């Protein structure tokens, strides 16, 4: 549950120590795509900063 809370914090715009210390294994998008293409496991992209628009 801790990881979800971290996401929620990020969602709220926080960049807290909890977020930095989370045990979520963040991947590069292309790495995630490559892995998904061999296992079928889904990808979750969390937009924490949006260079193309708001945020």
């Amino acid at each position, binding site marked *: 549950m801790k990881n979800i809370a971290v996401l929620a914090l990020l969602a709220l715009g926080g960049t807290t120590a909890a977020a930095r210390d989370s045990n979520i294994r963040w991947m590069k998008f292309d790495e995630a795509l490559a892995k998904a293409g061999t296992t079928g496991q889904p990808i979750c992209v969390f937009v*924490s900063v949006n*260079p*193309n628009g708001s945020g």
Partner: protein
Amino acid sequence: MKLNSGFYMVRCADKATSDKVKSEAISTMIFLDGDGKEYHRTVVGTFDSVEAAFKKANELYAKKPIAWATGEASDVLSQTRGDKKKLVALAFLDEKKDSETLVASLEDRWVAKQQERLVYTKIAFDRSSEICKKYNVTSVPTLILVNPAEEDLKKSIVDQLVAKKELVSVHNFLVKAFDKFDKASKN
């Protein structure tokens, strides 16, 4: 179990990733299937909304049991003849583990979306049966994809998968078969 444990997690904070996922707003969760196709997107702001996003993503990308066609294979082929987008999947199965594994792969969330274009027919494997002889099936499990619109037996067989395979092989087999079928349909 953590709700996010079944997902490869990507944090989008750079322009390259943002362009790839076409991000439009901060705090968006974007879900993509094993083929990299987006199937769910939602903006979150609270713990509950993050939790709900994961739940919805799991519901939308889920295992789907096969709806087996009833009747003889020849009847199923005749009934499907008018649908130019669909293939008939003749699944020669027995009661053993390898057959169960193949069916489980076909029902897997990654592969299940192909069910929209397939009419599955389960055939009890019996090498002395007419249908096994007709399609030259000598081992089990065997999955044969048949174009029902093609009357010539040899030409009607789009591809076949023999023996138990890993999930990725079953997935790739179906993707390639439909690619071949769709290209042939255009010509």
